[in-house]
């Protein structure tokens, strides 16, 4: 079954076509990767799907419903969440609070309950903290559970973003270059984490430059070049596609 369907999607900035007439489908339960050189439009595609940008034209269908032009927080309710290529961490909070904020939609967010700290609220908050600690363990951050966000190294912050996105219990998780800036050992760990997440039933849309990682874990690969689809298919099909080799893999 297709979870997400993109139809004729276009986004222009000034005269630049960052995404041009792009169509593709993501099947539920798979790892779907998007590759392409810098400036190909991968992050723009993520910004369109998650509602940060409104498309110039085209459709984004989540299980048949057009979600284009919906704000990001509405899309989160529908089960979409993402991480960022350029970190978006709240450094005014502790590491675990960054993960806990991911549970926002599942918690009691009544203002009165918060002011007077109703027992049901503290109970829910307590469980949320335990869950967040579990998620931090899952992505390999057990030693930072009590740390402030600004004391974490870069690689740990990348994983903190994944844990935060998981706390929303997404159906579709978009990861924008989760292995960028990581050493090979950390990359292998991320590789394992992504597969674990997929096995738990979350569909994944992945942007990544590390070809080994992409070829290793993707069910399906989409190649973008100048905002347009250059090729699409299974990992081995992409590996042997001459157009892709010329344009990108070199």
């Amino acid at each position: 079954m297709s979870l997400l369907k993109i139809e004729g999607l276009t986004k222009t900035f000034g005269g630049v076509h960052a995404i041009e007439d792009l169509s593709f489908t993501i099947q539920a339960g798979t790892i779907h990767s998007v590759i392409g050189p810098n400036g190909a439009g991968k992050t723009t595609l993520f910004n369109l799907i998650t509602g940060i940008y409104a498309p110039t034209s085209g459709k984004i269908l989540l299980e048949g419903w057009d979600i284009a032009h919906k704000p990001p927080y509405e899309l989160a309710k529908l089960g979409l969440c993402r991480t960022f290529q350029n970190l978006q961490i709240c450094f005014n909070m502790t590491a675990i609070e960054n993960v806990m904020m991911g549970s926002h939609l599942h918690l009691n967010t009544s203002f009165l309950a918060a002011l007077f700290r109703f027992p049901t609220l503290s109970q829910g908050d307590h469980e949320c903290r335990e869950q967040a600690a579990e998620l931090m363990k899952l992505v390999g951050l057990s030693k930072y559970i009590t740390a402030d966000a600004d004391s974490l190294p870069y690689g740990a912050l990348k994983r903190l973003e994944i844990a935060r996105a998981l706390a929303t219990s997404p159906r579709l998780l978009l990861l924008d270059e989760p292995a960028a800036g990581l050493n090979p050992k950390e990359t292998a760990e991320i590789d394992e984490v992504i597969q674990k997440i997929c096995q738990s039933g979350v569909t994944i849309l992945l942007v990544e430059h590390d070809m080994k990682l992409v070829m290793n874990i993707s069910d399906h690969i989409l190649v973008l070049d100048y905002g347009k689809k250059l090729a699409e298919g299974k990992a081995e099909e992409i590996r042997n596609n001459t157009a892709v080799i010329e344009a990108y893999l070199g």
Partner: protein
Amino acid sequence: MLPPKRYHGLLLLAFIIMILPLFLTNNFHYDVAIHIGINAIVVVGLNLLIGYAGQISLGHAGFFGLGAYTSGILTANYAWPPLLALGAGVILVGLLAFLVAHPILRLKGHYLAMATLGLGMIISIVLSTEDRYTGGPDGMTVPSFSLFGWEILGEQNWYWIIGCLLLLSIWLALNLIDSPVGRALRAVHGSEVAAQVVGIDTIRYKILIFVISAIFASIMGSLTAHYTGFITPVIADFFHSIELVTMVVLGGMASTFGVVIGAFILTLLPQFLANVEEYEVMIFGLILILTMIFLPKGLLPTLIALKKRHTA
């Protein structure tokens, strides 16, 4: 059983409030302590907006003044019961804050600072010019506060009332900050886009906390009017707004006890500046600038960080 760690500071403050009268030897001392408490409550509310949610208001004195004058006019001219008049102030200020914040906070960028600056000025001008109701620049007298037939008079009674309200407002603020709503507010400051993709309606939270902080100011404005028994439009002017922001910045943004310390220092300061009163505005401006350059985190957070580094 020990109370939760989050309330330790609150207990310490309760203890200080309880023993402080031993050192307050006359009504003038009590009066200064009461004004410290009033400012502290206002900035505990303002800090929720500035320190935690990262939004700036340069017009909170306007809300304070509007609360004060609503209470003053309704009780003095229309014989409303003070508590009802205070409630009317809350509704008026809450509505006004909502109506201003709603369009402004939809825009990206720091338009709130500009809008509140303008709003504060408008309020203070209206209070000066509508002298039919407000007495104009000369001010107006306000009857004392009474509740269920019990009249609150004298510095000592007010001291305990303001003391209790300060503890209550800190308790509420601490609860709020450490809750899903509080995390959403801090996320708005930390990374608005991250907040949005996890499902936080950031505009709604910004509006909410702006309205709440305005209501804090309104309530304290009302009580100040009854306590002092006489108000002038000066309480709503731009300088008072800057005083409040300086208390937040000096004490420590995003530190509830820090801003209480900020209120303490900056309410006491003018007592020592009695003979250089004309420089007061300049001195506050200087403190604001120096703090932002040399202590960007504010007094209390800097001290806590120093202590952490020392023990580590």
